[in-house]
């Protein structure tokens, strides 16, 4: 069971590497894409931690993030397109 925590540590490190792109990105679109990918990696780490601690209720948060996480991206793209 310890390998699950190890894998999720690697995913969080990848999310930290995406924070560099959040810092460096020349335009707003790069930052939006990086934030969306950070959301997805967070979902994966959450699922792995839920399987580690054997509680089914922890998966609801991952479900919420996976369903609702794209609305922010959609709205930002509508804003950049100029029609909201």
């Amino acid at each position, binding site marked *: 069971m310890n390998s699950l925590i190890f894998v999720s540590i690697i995913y969080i490190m990848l999310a930290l590497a995406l924070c560099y792109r959040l810092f460096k990105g020349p335009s707003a679109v790069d930052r939006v894409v990086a934030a969306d990918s950070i959301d997805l990696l967070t979902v994966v780490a959450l699922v792995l931690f839920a399987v580690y*601690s054997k*509680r*089914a*209720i*922890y998966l609801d948060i991952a479900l919420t993030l996976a369903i609702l996480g794209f609305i922010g991206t959609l709205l930002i793209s509508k804003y950049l397109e100029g029609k909201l």
Partner: protein
Amino acid sequence: MLLLNYITCIILIVLGLYTIVTKKNFMKIVIGMGLLDYGINLLLISVGFKAGGTAPIFTINELDRSSFFVDPVPQALTLTSIVIGACVTALALALVIMINKHYGTLDTDKVRRLKG
């Protein structure tokens, strides 16, 4: 483990206060209020944590007999605090929109000068 949590919460609160005090843009001030909210919520949850406990929500047959809970009272407090924080953010943004409609700017200095 918990010491690092407390340090992070205090740094978050200080960052929020720094943003509120020094930035000149109204939207940036509201963003600083959001950061301060995150810091306080994290601090409240970290107070109620006990190592090795599980969550205080369960269905029957899911837990062992030897498992124990983390403290549920700060979680209830924080649940209220998050909702109130969202409402405060919405109200502050409405005020920002009205200020922009009246004065035509977002800079704090110019608004104060027009008022004086």
